[in-house]
């Protein structure tokens, strides 16, 4: 009881961290072009719902994942439309998306399955399993690692390469820092904003699909339980970089995995439940002064006439 390092805890850490670092990657693709995304949690919820429903009706979990990407992209188009197109407040749009997802998923659960609590069980994404179990030390961890976790890790690497080793990434980052300078260089600023927000929100949908068809095989009401907000915190803690977000997510994942493990202690469960959130606050209190997000995040971009 209460071990700090065990195979079980490391497996759980990776599983809990997966939706966090994929979601955080999605969040940073939005913020890198200057669009704050408080709606991450709602988009993840919508992704989780659509993945489970698609997986149930098509009997293919991977089609479910694809559907989650599409729904995330659609909500990204909505968010970008409100924030970039209509130049409205980013937090307002995010809050609207959260409320919309919470209510729409329950509405559709009731309409499709006559049950407000959860969907019927559906096929889930497999894990590596088999021969990998033989590998020493990391074997037991690899064995239970979901294919989606591997996809997520590859996306983190791809995200890093895109942002820091391509011309497109440089331009994308410049849009979030100073869109007017980017515009003066002849970049299609609005196009970069829409594109990056849509990709980022599609990733948030993917992160949600891990909850319903990766970790479990069912959608339950409000199953994100605030993970989108924690992903947002991981993004900030990770200084708006893919690898930073990954490390921050692994940290949060570890704290939560340890917390689940610690529930066997004599400490009341509620204290232990609060630990990940208190840890996040504590960490943010110490790092916030030193980290700085994209300079133009949250501000409206009005194309200036040349």
């Amino acid at each position, binding site marked *: 009881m209460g071990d700090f390092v065990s195979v079980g805890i490391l497996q759980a850490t990776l599983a809990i961290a997966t939706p966090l670092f994929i979601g955080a990657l999605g969040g940073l693709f939005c913020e890198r072009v200057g669009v704050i995304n408080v709606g991450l949690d709602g988009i993840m919820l919508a992704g989780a719902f659509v993945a489970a429903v698609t997986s149930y009706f098509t009997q293919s979990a991977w089609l479910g994942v694809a559907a989650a990407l599409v729904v995330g992209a659609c909500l990204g188009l909505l968010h970008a*439309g409100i924030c970039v197109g209509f130049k*409205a407040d980013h937090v307002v749009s995010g809050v*609207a998306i959260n409320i919309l997802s919470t209510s729409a998923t329950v509405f559709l659960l009731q309409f499709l399955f006559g049950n407000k609590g959860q969907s019927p069980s559906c096929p889930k994404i497999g894990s590596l399993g088999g021969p990998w179990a033989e590998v020493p030390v990391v074997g037991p961890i690899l064995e239970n690692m979901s294919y989606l976790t591997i996809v997520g890790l590859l996306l983190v690497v791809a995200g890093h390469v895109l942002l820091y080793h391509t011309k497109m990434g440089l331009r994308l980052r410049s849009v979030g820092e100073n869109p007017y300078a980017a515009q003066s260089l002849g970049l299609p600023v609005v196009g970069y904003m829409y594109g990056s927000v849509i990709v980022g929100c599609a990733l948030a949908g993917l992160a949600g699909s891990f909850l319903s068809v990766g970790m479990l095989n069912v959608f339950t009401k409000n199953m994100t339980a605030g993970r989108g907000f924690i992903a947002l915190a991981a993004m900030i803690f990770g200084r708006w970089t893919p690898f930073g977000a990954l490390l921050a997510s692994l940290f949060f994942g570890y704290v939560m995995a340890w917390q689940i493990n610690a529930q066997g202690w004599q400490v*009341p469960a509620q204290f232990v439940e609060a630990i990940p*959130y208190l840890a*996040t*606050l504590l960490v943010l*209190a110490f790092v916030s002064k030193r980290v700085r997000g994209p300079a133009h995040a949250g501000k409206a971009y009005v194309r200036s006439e040349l």
Partner: protein
Amino acid sequence: MKRTLGVEVLSSLLAVAAALAVGAGIIGAIGQNPLAAYGAMFKGAFGDVPAWADTLQRATPYIFGGLGFAIAAQAGLFNIGLEGQMYLGGMVAAIIGFSLPGLPAGLHVAAALAGAAAGGLLMALIPGLLKVRAGVHEVISTVMLNYVAYAATGYLTVHVFHEPGVVAQTFKVAPTAVLWPLLPPSKLNAGFILGVIMAFLLWIFLFYTPWGYDLRVTGLNRRAARYAGIRSTRVVMAAILASGAIGGLMGAERILGVYQRFIHAFSPGYGFTAIAVALLGQNHPLGILPAAILFGALEAGSSSMSLQVDVPRELGMMLQAIIIVFVAAQAFIKNRLSTLLKRGEG
């Protein structure tokens, strides 16, 4: 000045109308008659006195929450932590409510309300300090604290003040601490009137006092406010504390007026929906009143609608969200409206 107010009201009404149109499409898509559904909804919200009482009862937490969000928003802050401030405030109100029997009724209620406000204020002190001292964005810190407040009140409910039984709830508050019912058997209580009075007080404060002016200037442009000699850090702190205190009162109204005890996880998300109410009301105290009543009506109406027409009651909540999507797009609508009005004049 008059005309901009007209534009604001008109654009809010347009957002509501557009959302109702989208809602009609959704009702049609699931194979029901939108007119029949909306008819049932309207009757359930405003059809008779009990329907009105239900609507106003459901609107009450949104009045408090909307005002709480608005005062922070006027200072340029997003308090997403109303839910946690409400839980802590509600818990303090319950504790004062059941642990001090024998107090005169008016005094007991006042003490419980004051305690609740203090509880919400304390909950807001943390994100306030984190923002001012460490630069932590309040959206993140208040969200994290929601979970902490949920866990903390859960602990108090289950382990400290637990009334024996299967339900996770505390002891009942003394009759002297109950907020007076207005239209029994409905749950509408004096908290509604308190909310309306607060809206007017806040309106006077924000728009007719120097402190309110400082607060709004800080919200519009913190740097400019500093140059104008406004101590903006202090204003930001005061605004977030006031916001939290009102969040605490939101909890007190539910606990003292409706449940008469603290029930674990009693909120279906009042604190979050209240944000939507504040936005619809344009963060104006007097705009929040009709916005809150509309949201209460959507809930009361869709509840009774789902009994008569086969449309899930979550439609009401979806309409609330769609309204906000349109409100969010309002900058655009507002611009168009102003241009149209100008063209009409010219």
